């Protein structure tokens, strides 16, 4: 007997087609949330912010709802991948056609969202905001840069496409990629890299745009070295096992 987990089903109450869902995983981000949410709501875009409270022990949920966001409270900590998938499921259930992945900790800039959305209207299925493709002055350390280069090489081979920033969590998605990620999203740490390869290998049109990012304003960056090394190896192994499935005929050539 095989019983796979089924994907979400659209509900009867769908949102207006122009609304854009902002998926924001948050784990103990009560300090950073108010300014992050204020930044998003200050834009003229029709954004609906969904904060996924990933089992926080602080007032993340309360602060999210008090600052104009919808809050989905997970009963326990699932990690960023699980929180993101919750957001994708919610987006699909409510029938959102476009989605943004946005960090709660303030490293992403709401003013960059329009640049991130632009390629979607030109036929892209997913857009990655890159720290290294020209805009801004974000820096990483040397050893981390080296590890990222190897990863970038592996991804280039698997995705068949060059990306300058594979771990960026600043992304936008069209309806088909939202549906793909709602059904299956890599659940472990470094999910963003896996998700990127997954979308490419599924035959989606994935593009990259240069974006400005800030240093983190709150929370703790997840770069403890042992854990990072373990996940680094794990990602390389699991990337090699990403199935190649032609989800649809290839879109417009980039």
């Amino acid at each position, binding site marked *: 007997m095989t019983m796979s987990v089924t994907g979400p089903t659209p509900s009867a109450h769908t949102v207006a087609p122009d609304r854009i869902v902002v998926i924001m995983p948050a784990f103990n981000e009560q300090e950073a949330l108010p300014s992050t949410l204020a930044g998003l709501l200050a834009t003229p875009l029709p954004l609906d912010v969904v904060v*996924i409270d990933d089992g926080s022990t602080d007032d993340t949920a309360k602060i999210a709802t008090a600052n104009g966001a919808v*809050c989905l409270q997970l009963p*326990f900590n699932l990690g960023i991948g*699980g929180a993101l998938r*919750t957001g994708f499921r919610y987006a699909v259930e409510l029938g959102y056609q476009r989605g943004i992945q946005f960090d709660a900790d303030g490293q992403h800039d709401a003013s960059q969202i329009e640049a991130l959305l632009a390629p979607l209207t030109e036929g892209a299925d997913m857009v990655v905001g890159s720290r290294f493709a020209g805009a801004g002055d974000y820096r990483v350390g040397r050893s981390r840069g080296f590890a990222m280069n190897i990863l970038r090489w592996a991804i280039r081979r698997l995705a068949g496409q060059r990306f300058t920033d594979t771990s960026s969590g600043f992304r936008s998605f069209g309806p088909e990629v939202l549906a793909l990620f709602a059904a299956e999203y890599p659940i472990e740490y470094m999910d963003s890299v896996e998700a990127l390869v997954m979308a490419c290998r599924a035959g989606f049109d994935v593009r990259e745009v240069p974006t400005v990012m800030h240093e983190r304003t709150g929370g703790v960056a997840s770069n403890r070295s042992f854990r990072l090394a373990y996940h680094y190896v794990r990602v390389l192994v699991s990337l090699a096992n990403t199935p190649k499935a032609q989800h649809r005929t290839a879109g417009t050539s980039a």
Partner: protein
Amino acid sequence: MSTRAHIMLAILVAMAILVIIRLVRRRHLKAKYSLLWLTLGGFMVVIAAVPGLLDWTAARLGIYYQPTLLLLLGLALLLLIVMHFSYELSRMENRVRTLAEESAILRHRLSVLERLAEASAEKIADSNSEPDHEG
């Protein structure tokens, strides 16, 4: 094996089987897992009951130190069981994870419904008490 070792083994096997049956009857253990352990128990019973069997089989397989055969079989079986558990665990984790996600979404949607119900109940109450009031 000496007679004393044999008796020891027989007692241990009998106890193990009794524990398994007890767990199954109290529904602490699912039947599919109990089958696994009961098979193992049955295997042990045969080995304990027929002293020459292990030696004979080992000789047939070209194994000169008989306990090796027992260890080999035991290890192989345990490996299979552990693999099976890993498989089950992955499946369970996947399901628990999905349930958690669903629960978060449903919890939110329930709260939206509750707020709507509350608002409409107030509206009805207002219109009943003050028909002219505009709110």
